[in-house]
């Protein structure tokens, strides 16, 4: 059970890192995620079925996600469409595109195919106990991606992207076009989301156009859990670690809901309601925490 939670948490954690980049670093609520997640899954599954190398298929999925993000950025930048609507437009268009990629089907299984995951499992079996192979693999993958993101946001380019989310005027005053930075940030974020989708498809054994439904809410809830539970910090390394931890905790909650929810007459159909309520509760808690801090500060100043 615990490996299942951890593996799921880490796979979806890659998506959470993407959501963290748009929502927290760029300050751009990007809903493309609901489309780019199944896009990654669809591209990966088609790649496997075509007999491509697993890593190559993963790269294609990543590039697909990057393009999806760039399209959202272009709609927002060039046509001056509000960011939420730009994301919804791309997401809606991606639904049709994903079905096309899957060969006009809504669900394509790869259970009997050789995937990147089954390949790794084959190689590692005997060295690592079978139950832990996937866990080990995803710990490594998630940590490598996390470290790459940390490195990126410590470069000059990454720092300017961080500053733009905070203060767009400052970036304009530095002679940098904020549109370019938004395009890069959205591309990177959706690329990560697509990679997450690609791994999810291999883990679940199928790609489905409905995979992305509500994924943005899961991502946002995970980011918020991570921020809520762990001390506030502005160090990118801590923040990305929080996002991964938040994802694991979120999936633990969902796991409990899925398997033990029947005790309170809950069905799997209620999970979306639970996700939404979870976010609302977290928002209320963060607000009251802020309020407490403010009153505390006011008292200290007196």
């Amino acid at each position: 059970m615990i490996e299942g939670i951890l593996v799921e948490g880490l796979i979806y954690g890659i998506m959470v890192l993407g959501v963290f980049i748009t929502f927290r670093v760029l300050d751009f609520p990007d809903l493309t995620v609901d489309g780019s997640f199944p896009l990654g899954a669809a591209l990966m599954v088609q790649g496997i079925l075509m007999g491509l190398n697993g890593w190559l298929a993963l790269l294609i999925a990543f590039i697909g996600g990057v393009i999806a993000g760039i399209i959202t950025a272009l709609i927002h930048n060039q046509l001056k469409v509000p960011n939420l609507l730009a994301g919804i437009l791309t997401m809606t268009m991606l639904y049709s595109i994903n079905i096309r990629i899957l060969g006009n089907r809504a669900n394509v299984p790869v259970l009997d195919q050789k995937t990147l995951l089954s390949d790794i499992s084959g190689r590692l079996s005997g060295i690592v106990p079978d139950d832990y192979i996937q866990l080990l693999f995803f710990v490594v993958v998630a940590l490598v991606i996390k470290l790459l993101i940390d490195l990126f946001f410590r470069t000059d380019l990454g720092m300017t992207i961080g500053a733009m989310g905070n203060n767009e005027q400052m970036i304009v005053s530095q002679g940098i076009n904020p549109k370019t930075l938004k395009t890069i940030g959205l591309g990177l974020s959706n690329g990560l989301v697509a990679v997450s989708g690609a791994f999810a498809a291999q883990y679940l054994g199928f790609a489905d156009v409905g995979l992305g439904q509500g994924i943005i809410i899961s991502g946002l809830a995970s980011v918020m859990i991570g921020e809520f539970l762990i001390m506030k910090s502005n160090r990118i390394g801590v923040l990305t670690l929080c996002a991964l931890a938040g994802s694991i905790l979120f999936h633990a909650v969902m796991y409990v809901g899925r398997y033990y929810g029947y005790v309170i007459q809950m069905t799997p159909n209620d999970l979306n309601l639970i996700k939404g309520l979870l976010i609302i509760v977290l928002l209320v808690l963060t607000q009251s925490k802020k309020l407490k801090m403010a009153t505390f500060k006011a008292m200290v100043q007196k």
Partner: protein
Amino acid sequence: MIAIKNASVIFNQSTINENQALRDINLNVKEGDFITIIGSNGAGKSTLFNLIAGTIIPTVGSIHANGRNITREPEFKRAGYIGRIFQNPLLGTASNMSLEDNMMITYRKGFKWLKRSLNNKMREYFRSELIQLKMGLEQRMKENLVMFSGGQRQALTLLMMVLSKPSLILLDEHTAALDPKNAEIVLELTDKFITEYKLTSMMITHNMSHAIEYGNRLLMMDQGEIIFDVSGDAKKELTVEKLIEKFHELRHRGFENDRALLSE
């Protein structure tokens, strides 16, 4: 340096809310000028800065920089050679980043690539420059800017702008949001940097005595027009009383700005 030719700015043209913010402005900013600008609220001072910085484009007329027509050049491109400081001290720096990160971002203008330039050599350089501010900021390089006061942030913005060596700097009431003591410090730093680095600059102020004390040229604006442009010795002889008198003589009404009168 910068020349504005017959520029007018009309907001909401041909609607009921039509508002002519600038009326046929002709201005030639010469290299080395330090121009102070005064005028009551709604006189068009900030609109003039927005026009020069590229935030808005003129409804008619044109803008030239060193003989090149820049009327349609976007703001971020002009920012490469025009520095600007706003009244709000939060607009110049990123609150949730450390002092050294902020300095690294503002150190060089233009697009930045996948390179990590912040190293100990840069830190040492930043520290040596921060000493000039005499605020003890050089000891706080790793702290987030949320922890700094408005005056410290404005001084920092000023320093970083000066280090990027812009051809023209625009100061949009950059001390108005600070407490009197900090405002004084930032203003003195401004004057020091402008003289030291021979910067061409324009400064909007609500304080008439500041407008007279600093700079070599003074512009008085009213209802979207530059009504009075004085420089050199004629400016040196100005006093607050003479300015108010001049305004009355030109416009046949009193200078309606209590703030300017009160802040001696």
